């Protein structure tokens, strides 16, 4: 039992990062119907920016905001250069465009920075723990969870209380009618990319802290976690994405510690298989957030 609680707490730390990534994926899917396989590249780019900053002697206090800025700018740039040109295209085209960008970004880094992993120092407190009774809690997880909660609250405030958030939600539900009501479609889509970039930036800070390095292929993992978590939650649903992220994090930690012997190494495979099964039986996602009934 103690072990399970321990696992769940560890999993929530991990899942919080996934939730932020998934939320970014969900926001973009909502307005553009684009399953963004390039989402992880925001972290690749941020990672190299962080590496460059560390090389010039910056500390994590300065690098953290830098990561967020770089992530937002990259997201807007990708939208401008590529996604704005395939708006409204078929799902096939959209998916392959994002898949192509995913490769292009990593290929550019291989070409200009090299394929080798670039390391930087993790913050000193990353492995510190404190205990509550028999349970050891990482300081890192605590920070992650706290920042995630604050970020989610801020996101909710933006979505619920600003006109931009309102326009974004309206556009995600019915793009054409939103335009008819005077919502500026360019502005909403760019805003959505900025928001997803900011969320990826915050997730990226923790991802990079934990990893302590970056490489051209660094984007694959965060992309997968974000996309899968968004799928678990039911694509396009923002609440679902957050819950999907947490569920994915907890599932990973629990499976890794509970699966017997050799099978534990297969955790990721098991998770993918479970997600495939989930899609076969519930294509709308595990936590399909009930739409208010249409009349």
């Amino acid at each position, binding site marked *: 039992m103690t072990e399970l609680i321990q696992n769940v707490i560890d999993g929530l730390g991990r899942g919080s990062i996934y939730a932020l990534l998934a939320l970014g994926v969900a926001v973009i899917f909502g307005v553009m119907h684009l399953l963004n396989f390039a989402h992880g590249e925001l972290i690749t780019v941020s990672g190299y920016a962080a590496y460059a900053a560390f090389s010039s002697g910056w500390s994590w206090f300065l690098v953290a905001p830098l990561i967020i800025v770089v992530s937002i700018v990259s997201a807007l740039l990708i939208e401008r250069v590529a996604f704005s040109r395939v708006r409204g295209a078929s799902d096939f085209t959209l998916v392959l465009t994002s898949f192509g960008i995913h490769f292009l970004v990593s290929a550019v880094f291989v070409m200009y920075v090299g394929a080798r992993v670039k390391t930087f120092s993790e913050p000193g407190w990353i492995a510190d723990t404190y205990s509550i009774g028999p349970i050891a809690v990482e300081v890192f997880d605590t920070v992650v969870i706290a920042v995630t909660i604050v970020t989610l609250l801020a996101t909710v405030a933006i979505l619920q209380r600003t006109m931009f958030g309102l326009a974004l*939600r309206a556009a995600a539900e019915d793009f054409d*009618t939103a*335009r008819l009501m*005077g919502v500026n479609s360019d502005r909403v889509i760019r805003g959505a990319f900025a928001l997803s970039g900011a969320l990826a930036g915050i997730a990226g800070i923790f991802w990079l802290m934990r990893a302590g390095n970056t490489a051209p292929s660094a984007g694959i993992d965060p992309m997968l976690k974000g996309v899968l978590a968004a799928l678990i939650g039911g694509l396009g649903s923002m609440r679902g994405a957050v819950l999907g992220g947490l569920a994915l994090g907890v599932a990973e930690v629990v499976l890794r510690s509970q699966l017997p012997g050799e099978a534990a190494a297969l955790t990721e495979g098991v998770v993918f298989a479970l997600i495939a099964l989930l899609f076969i039986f519930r294509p709308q996602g595990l936590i399909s957030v009930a739409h*208010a*009934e*249409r009349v």
Partner: protein
Amino acid sequence: MLLETTGLTTRYGSISALRDVSLSVGAGEVVGLIGPNGAGKTTLLGTVAGLLRPAAGTVRFDGADMTGKAPDRMLRAGLALVPEHRRIFVDLTVVENLKIGGITLPPAQRPALLEEMAELFPVLRDKWDTAAGYLSGGEAQQLAIARALMSKPRLLMMDEPSLGLAPVLVDVVFELISTLRDQGCTMLVVEQNANRMLEVADRAYVLRSGALVAAGTGPELLARDGLFDTFVGGTAE
């Protein structure tokens, strides 16, 4: 004339959904647009609102040529559309739907307008923070109209406001049109319920197979022999 179309023709691919339609709406007028399903009424409103591009013809609004302008431009110019099937945002609350309707206005004007809507639509005030998906058909239609009014339009266009409503709710919708008319609101309303529409409209146009086949005041059209035939094409003219 507030709105004037001349020779408006719209095609979907190879289909001419609208052929050479010229009509006008004067400030303060309530104009009906009636005709059977598939006559091109929705296409006409969509073309005027900027959702569809005309293949030929012009749309003039308040004297300015607005042909082919994007919907948000038309809205800013003062032309709002209540779309067919209402298309309210079901995941948003009632008040959020209204705020979206007023998105083009300076924020300072919104509270007063929301207050106005609350007065005009008491049923909505009671459900201010309910997700719009939980509204009944009649309430949803009122919300769709209120949402369009939030942009303070100089011309309100409605597409089949009584569609799919129970008879008693149809009464509510037509009462609402009368109320708006009495407040001086200029309207162009597409309706299948011709009799009811002609009662509240100053004038009406009859559209069939994409072309105008008759025009006149309500009494003129109603008095005319064979409105039914004109309407559904029982006898070719």
